[in-house]
């Protein structure tokens, strides 16, 4: 079983602040490994334990994302691919998924490609399905668990709004993963961190992956971000601290006035 996990470094979004003009402050915001991706890595390592093989990770990102990739190696991944070039600046999901699919083809044959269901910054959830489309392989999203791998097929649990599906998919396939509610993330051990330093870390530039360069970066991106702004803020409303009967009455009255209850 050769598994590749796509990983992304993201700003810690529980810590986003804006300046007085409403521009997001990027300085001082911690960068972390996307939690969905950490789950995917841990699930891949569990599969490796069970079925053998190798777990590689891949990112397409500026050099500083190495910290996040290194964390994957410290958790136990065997090998890393880091594609980094100014040519990829401004990529939307079509351009990102195209470049990733080229790098995957170059990196070799994988039985399984895993990704996060979404990255907590861009939050589109496009990359997994789109990489699968470029590669011409099937994929399943919202995968909470890889139950088994048998006979060239993976059996996975995929979450729906009102339940879940058990899906069997032929390999090679891509799985976009979502941590289950009570998932406990592992912290890399000291020895893991030390071992990570001597694991293969492969750097590629745009020239190293064969493809149509006009589809890279901003030029290859059909979408444009026109502007960004903080969401309309909700403000603190009326808070009652006593006289509950009366408070309940007033609230219900207000709700009827606003026609949210009839």
């Amino acid at each position, binding site marked *: 079983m050769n598994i590749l996990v796509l990983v992304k470094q993201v700003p810690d979004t529980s810590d986003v602040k804006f300046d007085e003009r409403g521009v997001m402050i990027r300085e001082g915001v911690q960068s972390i490994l996307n939690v969905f991706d950490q789950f995917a890595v841990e699930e891949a390592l569990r599969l490796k334990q069970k079925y053998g093989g190798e777990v590689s990770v891949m990112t397409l990102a500026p050099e500083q994302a190495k910290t996040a990739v290194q964390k994957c190696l410290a958790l136990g991944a065997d090998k890393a691919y880091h594609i980094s070039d100014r040519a990829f600046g401004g990529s939307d999901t079509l351009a990102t998924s195209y470049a990733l699919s080229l790098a995957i083809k170059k990196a070799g044959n994988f039985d399984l490609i895993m990704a996060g269901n979404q990255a907590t910054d861009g939050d589109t959830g496009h990359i997994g399905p789109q990489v699968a489309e470029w590669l011409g392989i099937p994929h399943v999203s919202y995968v909470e668990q890889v139950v088994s791998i048998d006979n060239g097929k993976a059996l996975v649990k995929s979450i729906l709004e009102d339940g879940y599906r*058990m899906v069997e*998919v*032929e390999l090679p396939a891509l799985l976009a993963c979502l941590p289950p509610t009570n998932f406990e993330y592992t912290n890399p051990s000291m020895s893991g961190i030390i071992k990570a330093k001597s694991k293969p870390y492969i750097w590629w530039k745009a020239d190293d992956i064969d493809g149509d360069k006009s589809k890279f970066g901003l030029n290859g991106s059909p979408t444009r971000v026109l502007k960004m702004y903080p969401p309309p803020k909700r403000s603190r409303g009326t808070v009652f601290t006593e006289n509950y009967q009366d408070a309940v009455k007033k609230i219900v009255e207000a709700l009827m006035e606003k026609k949210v209850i009839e």
Partner: protein
Amino acid sequence: MSDEYKGILVVGEIYDGKIRPVTFQLVTKARELADTLNTNLSVVLLGHNIGEMAKEPIYYGADKVYIMDDKIFEPYVAEVYSRALSKFINNLKPEIVLIPATHTGREYGPRIAAALQTGMTADCTDLVIKNGRFVQVRPAYGGNIMGEIITPNHRPQISTVRPNVFKTKEPDKNRTGEIIQVKPEFDSIKIRTLIKEIVKTTVTGAKKLDEAKIIVSGGRGVGSKEGFEKLKELADLLGGAVGASRVAVDLGWMPKSAQVGQSGITVQPDLYIACGISGTIQHIVGMKDSKVIVAINKDPNAPIFNIADYGIVGDLHEIIPMFIEEIKRIKKK
């Protein structure tokens, strides 16, 4: 090159044998956009034995409904839907395509954009025409930021759109339109995905969270599985659904399908009543766009009060029964 692309297409979803409400929400919104752009509105439905349902989108504003009726579409599988839709869209050449941002839509949708090599905007919460341009509004960074996205030169412009952000109008059963059968086309038909089992974890008869106009939601403060019974009573009275924080799900008090938030589902009801939920960012991103928020929490400093329109500081076990009584009293009138 983009001149040959005309009209708006809404991809409808059939779920559990019915057209999903989000379909009608998108049709209602798309009608508005089509009128502004002075163009036509089509809907495409994939499924098996679709029958009379095909008329329904017309009542909400569709001019044409395309039907792809084949047993291959039951049960839903991403690679089949994305392939059939990519072909169809490539033939129809609409300028705008709207897809529901459901778990299924977010699974097959992005593949279509890659297949057609065009731009796609994820999980939109608003769609507007500004100076003749189609502007897609979406949250990013865990709901901490809003972005306006355009697809200037590629067609079609594709968006997935969140359920419940657009409201439906009353259906007009006298409205007429065209229903057109389409034979699904596939390049190759080797399907590599097989659905072994579909399990529903919502209590049967319970309202679906993502479709409810009113949600009564509980967290750790509810205290027990039995505690949720009172929330359910209130929700039933209001014709709403019961939601939960992740802690309440982790503790086994509510099923995962009830979880609201970053790793659960995003809801946008008219009314969200948060009971014994502290209001961490991961919960708030899933419900902060509700029209009205009411919070009940015994801690006056709970962050949930900072986004609530109305709050009561106190014990929910005392206060929820008061709500139930008050609603009953009003209903009697």
